[in-house]
């Protein structure tokens, strides 16, 4: 969280202050100007002083204050309208470079090429100069003395306060420009400034004053002597005079505004620099903590992802359009109708477009730096967009349209194959149609615009023809797809039939034109499978028959054995060892009998020939009955049985007699092989439509891992000699499966777990 705050503030600070600073520098003509605390060191001030100087020069020489030309008329208009004092001076502050420069150029022009022409003008320059003097004399921020041939013409210096260049300046004034007729010297805070440098004027020179080697001057100027004093801390003076031309004219204090603006500029620039540094410091903090910012990004991503993409895009569009509406009204005010110019450029001159474009971009950049808030909004929007795209990779387009598309997809999955295939093609067809309509609409709307009429007609005809061809082709294709889909559906139906075990059906191969080969192959597979299944059934039947015959053949002699063993058992006068032999014979014959019966039952169950009497029955009751049935044996055994069987009925479909056999075998098994004193757990659980009975006992012997206990003739204890056939689990498994249940054995260390499951009703 901290890191994100640091990131947010640092970027906002840096971006905002950098933009503001750039704009400030751009507006004030350079970094040096902005970071100058003393207004007297700024170019505005120097320009202002030069301007005043040349005006004073003109006043001394009785030259026109302004030249007669296009610009002059333009300024005269303002002169007439607003009054020279206020407007001219204020404009000098507001847009220093442009206005004064033009005027300087004009003056220079006039000075170079025969200033005499203007003297012949019918205007009363002396009167203008006097008027001007009257207007500005009350502004004590700028003191001046204009002398011609040693005689003071105009001054607003009070007598005795200051006389010569070498005198100390009056209180509150620290700037002096003194022109002796040839060169100007500038003193600031008592020290003389080097204004000419190497003596040649270039564009980079600070001061524009006479006295450079490359400025020619007439002799008249040598008679002029001008001193200009500027206040260190200008105050506001306001003076209204009555003009014979324009009624009342107000004069204000340009230096005061200039100093004010400069100090504001300076403090603002300082604040911006502070912010920039603070931003940079915060950015360093963010870099240190940048890892924890990720969590905030993830959080933002999650939030954003909750909004549908349509909503997000709409919001983005609204914000951008809001910004741009504001932007364009501002931009047009500032720059004029750029688009009109752009269009004009395209219409008119080649190459101009490039120029306008370039200018447009630079103006746009400039405009943006003037509005840091817009810049920040754009930046953070971009940031959110990037976070959204990055954090919600793959899920960015989550929205209504996508949901609808998905819904359509799932819905169409339910349709039969043929319809689905045709449906899938529909968008292509419709979009083609829509595209065609759009083309005609555009052609209609743009008629008479760019092209000559017959070209338009040709375009429409060509487009229409292409569209017709496209539609015709896609319609043909659609028909073909439909045909194929129908065939494919028949083929899949065929496959489904084979899957369901229908090997018989004779199908019309002729219908399958495209898939004839596949259909033929499938047919072969089908007949092959039919044959294989038949053969397998036959062999199963034979197997069962064989087992039945063999068991019958064994039973006959076994009957005799059992009978005679029975007689032997009834003999009284036999020695003990013979009785023991008879006992063994009895045991073994009993086991053989069980085995024969079980083998027969298993082979029948495995081949699915066991007659089943499947009924609805209560699984829990079956278990309880089985336990009750075996209660005597359970009581005799050294283990206890714990049961968890629900009271409420759990209905399944099974053959009760067979399942009794299954559980009898399982419980007997558990009784036989359990550790003495241990517990056998018999449970019945229902879970998601499946009822499963579990029988769990602790084995007396170590259980062998990975041993299949359901294999026939497998016995947990190889050395046991009871009557068991070794087929108990095998029978349990085949009977359960014959009833439609599942039989699982799990070994957990010495735990032997059997699970018998049936679907609930």
């Amino acid at each position, binding site marked *: 969280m901290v890191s994100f705050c640091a990131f947010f503030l640092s970027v906002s600070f840096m971006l905002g202050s950098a933009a503001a600073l750039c704009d400030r520098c751009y507006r004030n003509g350079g970094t040096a100007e902005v970071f100058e605390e003393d207004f007297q060191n700024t170019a505005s001030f120097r320009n202002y002083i030069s301007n005043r100087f040349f005006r004073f020069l003109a006043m001394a020489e009785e030259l026109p204050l302004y030249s007669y030309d296009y610009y002059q008329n333009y300024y005269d208009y303002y002169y007439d309208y607003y009054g020279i004092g206020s407007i001219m001076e204020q404009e000098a502050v507001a847009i220093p470079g442009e206005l004064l420069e033009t005027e300087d150029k004009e003056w220079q022009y006039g000075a170079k090429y025969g200033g005499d022409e203007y003297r012949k003008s019918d205007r009363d320059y002396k009167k203008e100069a006097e008027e001007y003097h009257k207007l500005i004399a009350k502004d004590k921020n700028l003191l001046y003395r204009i002398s011609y041939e040693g005689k003071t013409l105009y001054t607003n210096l009070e007598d005795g306060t200051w006389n010569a260049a070498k005198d100390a300046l009056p209180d509150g004034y620290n700037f002096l420009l003194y022109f002796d007729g040839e060169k100007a010297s500038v003193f600031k805070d008592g020290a003389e400034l080097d204004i000419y440098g190497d003596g040649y004027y270039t564009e980079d020179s600070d001061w524009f004053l006479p006295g450079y080697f490359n400025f020619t001057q007439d002799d008249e100027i040598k008679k002029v002597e001008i001193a200009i004093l500027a206040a260190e801390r200008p105050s506001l003076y306001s003076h209204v005079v009555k003009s014979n031309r324009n009624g009342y004219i107000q004069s204000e204090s340009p230096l005061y505004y200039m100093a004010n603006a400069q100090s504001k500029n300076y403090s603002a620039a300082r604040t911006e620099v502070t912010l920039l540094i603070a931003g940079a410091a915060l950015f360093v903090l963010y870099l240190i903590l940048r890892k924890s910012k990720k969590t905030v990004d993830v959080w933002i991503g999650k939030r954003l992802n909750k909004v549908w993409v349509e909503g997000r895009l709409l919001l983005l569009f609204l914000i951008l359009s809001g910004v741009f509406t504001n932007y364009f009204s501002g931009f047009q005010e500032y720059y004029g109708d750029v688009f009109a110019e752009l269009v004009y450029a395209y219409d008119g001159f080649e190459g101009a477009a490039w120029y306008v474009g370039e200018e447009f971009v630079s103006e746009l950049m400039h405009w943006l730096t003037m509005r840091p808030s817009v810049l920040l909004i754009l930046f953070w929007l971009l940031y959110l967009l990037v976070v959204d795209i990055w954090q919600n990779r793959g899920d960015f387009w989550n929205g209504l349209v996508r949901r609808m598309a998905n819904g359509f997809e799932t819905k169409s999955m339910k349709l039969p194959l043929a319809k689905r295939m045709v449906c899938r093609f529909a968008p292509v067809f419709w979009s083609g149609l829509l595209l065609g309509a759009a083309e005609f609409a555009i052609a209609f709307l743009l008629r008479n615009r760019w092209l000559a009429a017959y070209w338009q007609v040709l375009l429409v005809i060509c487009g229409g023809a292409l569209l017709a061809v496209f539609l015709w082709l896609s319609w043909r294709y659609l028909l073909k797809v439909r045909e194929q889909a129908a065939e494919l559906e028949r083929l899949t139906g065929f496959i489904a039939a084979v899957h369901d075990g229908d090997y018989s059906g004779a199908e019309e191969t002729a219908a399958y034109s495209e898939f004839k080969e596949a259909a033929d192959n499938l047919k072969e597979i089908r007949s092959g499978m039919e044959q294989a299944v038949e053969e397998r059934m036959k062999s199963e039947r034979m197997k069962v028959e064989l087992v039945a015959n063999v*068991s019958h053949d064994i039973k006959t002699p076994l009957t005799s054995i059992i009978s005679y063993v029975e*007689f032997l058992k009834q003999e009284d006068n036999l020695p003990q060892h013979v009785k023991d032999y008879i006992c063994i014979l009895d045991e073994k014959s009993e086991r053989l009998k069980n085995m024969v019966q079980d083998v027969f039952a298993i082979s029948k169950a495995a081949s699915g020939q066991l007659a089943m009497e499947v009924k609805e029955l209560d699984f829990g009751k079956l278990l309880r009955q089985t336990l009750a049935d075996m209660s005597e044996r359970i009581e005799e055994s050294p283990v206890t049985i714990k049961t968890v069987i629900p009271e409420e009925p759990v209905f399944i479909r099974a053959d009760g007699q067979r399942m009794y056999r299954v559980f009898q075998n399982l419980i007997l098994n558990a009784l036989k092989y359990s550790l003495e004193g241990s517990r056998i757990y018999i449970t019945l659980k229902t879970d998601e439509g499946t009822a499963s009975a579990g029988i769990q006992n602790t084995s007396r012997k170590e259980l062998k891992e990975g041993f299949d206990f359901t294999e026939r003739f497998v016995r947990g204890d190889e050395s046991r000699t009871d009557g068991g056939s070794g087929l108990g689990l095998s029978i349990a498994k085949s009977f359960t499966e014959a009833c439609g249940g599942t039989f699982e054995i799990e070994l957990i260390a010495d735990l032997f777990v059997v699970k018998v499951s049936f679907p609930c009703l």
Partner: protein
Amino acid sequence: MSECVLVVDDDREIVKAIAILLEKEGYSVLRAYDGMQALRVLAEESVQLVLIDVMMPKLDGLSAVMKIRERQNIPIIVLSAKSEETDKVLGLSMGADDYVSKPYNPQELAARVRSHLRRYTRLGDIHANPQSGEIRNGRLCYQAQERTLYADGEPVRLTATETKIIDLLMRNPGRIFPAEEIYRRVWEEESFAPENTVMVHIRRIREKIELNPKEPEYLKVVWGIGYKIEKVEKYG
């Protein structure tokens, strides 16, 4: 005079073993080793019961049974190594009265012979004229008024509870009773887990009425549902 039993089997040792068994029980035994021979013996001697094997040379057991039934009404017990239900049903439908599968249990075989002979020689006329209040079901006969159960005409000694159970079941032969219902109607109270109690009594009754209590013919458990007395159509 002792009853005469004809034992027919192609396996001489088996015939001999059965003969020894039955002679011990006090019956006189005639022997035959194929179907033709059996028919000859029957034509010449007075025989009260026939024990006959299915698979035999010359004339097989089932054909022989059909031939015997053409002339005589004596009980016939089919003895076969085929133990399947279908074989049993086939044997009984051919006219046999009982079916014992090999290898047989000697005690059970003797009990069956005894049961059939008693009913044939002594009870034949009783079966012809049923009395009122008498419910007959195969070997069993229940006198409702006396609350006495007869098996092969002999009264069975039952305890009071056992009599109540038999009364309930014999009055509704073929109907399945859940243990809860039996308990409620016999003990006349509700029980939490009646299965064990009911099963103990069922087992005791079986010992008294069934020829082979391990493979009951009458008092049966319908697994997962309840208990019933099987409705037996034969012997009638």
